């Protein structure tokens, strides 16, 4: 199960007594189990901050987050995260990075490797099994990071612009892969992106955020059945609507 309840979350980064950045201002949102929600908004509006709070890496100054009615106060393996920046352990090979989570849970190395092999195939990196992160391109690193998060079998997967560094073609392929994994594995996904196309293609709901301080501006439910045709009329109409809302924020 992976129901996420975000209740009145605010987060202010204080530098000293007088100045500070209000990154999130009273954000509330209910996310259903197995839902795919995309967050989109101007740079610096607090999307990363929100994901970090849901993961438990950061704590809100006001409000609270629940996953399946359990209040989140610290990170745990049920909430996986793919970071915006590169986060692979450079001293571990690709395969050892992927089995890190399962090994922490006590899975035997041999079984963990067998499982990990599947995820490596999923992201198309079987030949790089024994490579080290410094030998991979940026996009490849991000794919390994996705495989590593998936191999830990989280109930909620938090993805912070995971495809930002990829070329359009790989991006499209991975979007397909992600959808099929999501359907197979029954996980809840919170997905941050800058790409309206991506949000429109993936999401059950698109959450549009305001410029700083980050608030929820609008939530759009996407009722177009999957797999969505990126060039269809409905998809285009939706894309224009989201773009218009974002443009209002950019002007501020």
């Amino acid at each position, binding site marked *: 199960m992976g129901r996420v309840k975000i209740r009145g979350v605010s987060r202010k980064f204080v530098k000293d007594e007088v100045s500070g950045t209000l990154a999130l201002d009273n954000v509330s949102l209910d996310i259903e189990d197995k839902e795919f929600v995309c967050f989109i908004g101007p740079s610096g509006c607090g999307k990363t901050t929100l994901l970090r709070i849901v*993961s*438990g*890496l950061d704590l809100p100054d006001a409000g609270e987050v629940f996953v399946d009615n359990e209040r989140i106060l*610290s*990170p*745990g*393996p049920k*909430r*996986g*995260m793919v*970071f915006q*920046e*590169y*986060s*692979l*352990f*450079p*001293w*571990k*090979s690709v395969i050892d990075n992927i089995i*890190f*989570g399962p090994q*922490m*849970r006590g899975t035997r190395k041999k079984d963990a490797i067998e499982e990990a092999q599947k995820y490596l195939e999923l992201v198309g990196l079987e030949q790089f099994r024994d490579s*080290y*992160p*410094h030998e991979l391109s940026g996009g490849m690193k991000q794919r390994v990071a996705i495989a*590593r*998060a998936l191999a*830990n079998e989280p109930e909620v997967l938090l993805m912070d612009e995971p495809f930002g560094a990829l070329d359009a073609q790989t991006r499209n392929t991975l979007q397909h892969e992600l959808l099929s994994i999501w359907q197979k594995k029954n996980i809840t996904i919170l997905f941050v992106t800058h790409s309206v196309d991506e949000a429109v293609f993936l999401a059950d709901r698109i959450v549009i955020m305001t410029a700083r301080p980050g608030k929820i501006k609008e939530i759009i439910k996407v009722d177009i059945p999957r797999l969505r045709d990126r060039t269809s009329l409905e998809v285009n109409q939706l894309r224009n609507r989201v773009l218009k809302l974002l443009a209002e924020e950019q002007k501020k």
Partner: protein
Amino acid sequence: MARGRFQKLKNKGVEILSVISAVIIWQLVADYIVRNRFFLPSFTDVAEAFLITVSRQGIFPFMGMDLELPVLLVDTLYSLMHFSIGLVAALVIGIPVGMIMGWFRSLERVFDPIIEIIRPIPPLAWIPFAIIWIGLNPFGAGFVIFVGALFPIIINTFTGFKSVPRIYVEAAKVLGCTADHDLIRRIAIPSALPSIAAGIRIAMGVGWMCLVAAEMFGVSRNGLGFKIWHNYYLHRMDFVLVYMLVLGFLGLLIDRAFRSYLEEKFFKWRTGVVM
């Protein structure tokens, strides 16, 4: 094979020429300008002294037996023993202290002022206390080397731990690695290892430099540093130089061996560790 070796020598041409010229200049200065074997022994004097030293036998007590070995080897073994006692003690104490200071903020503040006060004291200033606390034995010499080697190890372990990128710690946490001891073992140590290794390398250099002084105050009848003083009192400056050169070459050798071991170890995940 022979050709390959020749090629290698050819590539090192400048270096070889430089060493040969230095030796020739040394010989000429000693023979024609200084003309005093006590003041500056020439290269050939030293070579002769070296051959004499090599031909002598000494006794090395080992597991209840008295082994008869070349005296130079006995001295080397004694020095390596003093050196290892100090270095191992510095590792055993320095690495945990550095780790704790780097990981726990509050303990950094506890240890830091004490370390900052003791660190500037030159290791050799500890010799009187080494004698009264530990006595005239190999551990007394080891103590001086320990003091010299300790701080580079603490400081480098500490910096290595402090600069573990936050993203690795956070990535580990969301993968279920949340306990401090797991984070230290699986994230902080591997991430800080290059820095710790660099600290050990500096510590070995400092420890080696302390060796001569540590053996000076009569901890044993053998040791490369001890023999320097011994020969000095006998006014055999050519023998002093032999031992000086052996100390230099051995130090170089230890450093090279350690460095190539490190490169082997980190080669896989770090291309070109600069140390």
